């Protein structure tokens, strides 16, 4: 069907096919930069290793013992769970301020359904997980369908869920002894596996497994790629065939479910069911995500980075505590760490792969 093309185009058949030149000189720094660019979880991993090393040198055996090292894992387990939920949301370019509240409400539901209504503990746990999923669904619905900004939706839900939690629980703590006696399943994630001095709780093991599974899902399934695509540019994703609403809602529901799981793990960790727990879970999870090199603008970063980020904070916290510094110094250091983490990240981004 070749009708007359404009005559000046006739020469095109001879046109060159080379592309814009690339400058070849690459300094060592350039190489490092592009290596880090290709592996977003590498920086937090390196920082983690370095901080382990430094505290190991300062504190010796006290820190570098199986007990202490696995203690860090235990102390980080909850943040790891909530951080996994937070990571999913942040990859979609959202943010979830309600994670901690959902976690606590779910744990309270698990406890109160067992103790207040005398329901079988397994059923109560299911209800708790259900509550987490429902909270996640409400968040997801408001974000994906009503199209409200995630920050505001979850700011509102944070207050609503937390208030519900206090109203429903009547601020009552369920004591550990009672749980151990009548609803041991609630303590499931607190069970320990000891290997020498190392102590692994089921919660820790499960947290690591969860992160690995999510890492697989995010990188090797269509759903995972869609989550990244939505965070990258949700209009583009929609037009190129991603079911944005469905996927977004599923992300929030899964995040809610993970938070509810975290609530169960929380009971295992602190022993009792306490409606005042988890007040800092949102800030701590965001901190882990940020230090882990995941972009708050969405679409970029690895969930492994979040885990390393959480561990970095755990290492610093335990290390500084063992040294005996004023806890305020720890907070200050974490603040500096947060800012440095993004500054480094920004520098790495400046490379064009």
């Amino acid at each position, binding site marked *: *069907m*070749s*009708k*007359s*093309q*404009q005559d*000046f*185009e006739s020469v*095109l058949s001879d*046109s060159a*096919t*080379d*592309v*814009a030149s690339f400058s070849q000189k690459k300094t060592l720094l350039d190489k490092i930069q592009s290596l880090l660019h290709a592996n977003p979880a590498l920086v937090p991993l390196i920082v983690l290793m370095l901080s382990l090393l430094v505290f190991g040198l300062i504190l010796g055996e006290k820190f570098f013992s199986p007990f202490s090292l696995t203690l860090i894992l235990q102390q980080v387990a909850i943040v790891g769970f909530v951080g996994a939920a937070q990571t999913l949301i942040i990859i979609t370019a959202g943010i979830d301020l309600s994670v901690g509240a959902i976690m606590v409400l779910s744990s309270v539901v698990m406890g109160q359904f067992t103790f207040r209504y005398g329901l079988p503990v397994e059923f109560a746990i299911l209800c708790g997980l259900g509550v987490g999923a429902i909270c996640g669904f409400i968040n997801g619905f408001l974000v994906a369908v009503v199209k409200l900004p995630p920050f505001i939706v979850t700011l509102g839900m944070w207050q609503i869920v937390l208030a519900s939690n206090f109203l429903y629980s009547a601020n009552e703590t369920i004591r550990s002894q009672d749980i151990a006696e009548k609803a041991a399943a609630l303590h499931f994630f607190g069970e320990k596996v000891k290997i020498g001095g190392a102590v692994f709780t089921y919660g820790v093991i499960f947290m690591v497994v969860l992160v690995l599974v999510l890492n*697989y899902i995010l990188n*090797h*399934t*269509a*759903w995972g*790629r*869609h989550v*990244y*695509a939505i965070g*990258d*540019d949700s*209009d*583009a*994703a*929609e*037009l*190129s*065939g*991603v*079911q944005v609403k469905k996927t977004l809602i599923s992300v929030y529901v899964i995040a809610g479910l993970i938070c509810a799981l975290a609530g169960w793990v929380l009971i295992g960790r602190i022993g009792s069911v306490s409606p005042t727990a988890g007040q800092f879970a949102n800030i701590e999870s965001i901190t882990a995500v940020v230090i882990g090199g995941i972009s708050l603008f969405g*679409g*970029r970063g690895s969930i492994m980075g979040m885990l390393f980020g959480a561990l970095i904070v755990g290492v610093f916290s335990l290390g500084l505590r063992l040294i005996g510094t004023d806890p305020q110094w720890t907070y200050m250091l974490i603040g500096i760490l947060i800012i440095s983490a993004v500054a480094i990240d920004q520098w790495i981004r400046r490379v*064009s*792969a």
Partner: protein
Amino acid sequence: MNNNIEPILTGRGLVKRYGRVTALDHADFDLYPGEILAVIGDNGAGKSSMIKAVSGATIPDEGEVMLEGKPVHFTSPIDAREAGIETVYQNLALSPALSIADNMFMGREVRKKGFLGKYMRMLDRPKMEQIARDKLSELGLLTIQNINQTVETLSGGQRQGVAVARAAAFGSKVIILDEPTAALGVKESRKVLELISDVRSRGIPIVLISHNMPHVFEVADRIHIHRLGKRLCVINPKDYSMSDAVAFMTGAKEPT
């Protein structure tokens, strides 16, 4: 062309309002099998709005869309894609941080065979990359070094190429291109026009929106002229000159 055969894609009485602007004002639309239909019109005439309405990207306030004579109610671009309609939107719709291969297969990923694919839902990366590479080199539009490069590292022309290649690769019934050459250079535009002819020679009808009259008159079988939110007329490029077309679309002359 062929006025005795059934149109493959039809719009009737399409209305779309944005706030107080009426982007589509009872617009009609017909695409026949095997043809290249050009859509021309002033800026803001409602061309993109019409395309979005027939491809599921927006839901029209009123009116009906029919595919092969049967009414369809697309509520998302996915519906339209599943029905075989591929669209390259004016704003491209690629995800910058994802790779070329990821982008090409977005929403229709290929899974591994067997257990891994079925139960672990694992993507078949090597296969998708292979197909993407084939499609792109078939197209000849690109000298892309690495199919795993992220789209953000491509130039505007290269991105346009990826988008067109995606549509050409997967469109089974209709391909719609909204100003595919607007940002392209002479050489790159030519590649896209060649691609359009290629696709049509495979028997797939194409809708081409463009402001470039020589291009339109070169490739189109029929020209749909859009004005003030509706179809003003459809002309055969053999019967009318570019001047006529421009006069109709700008309101300088009334079609008879």
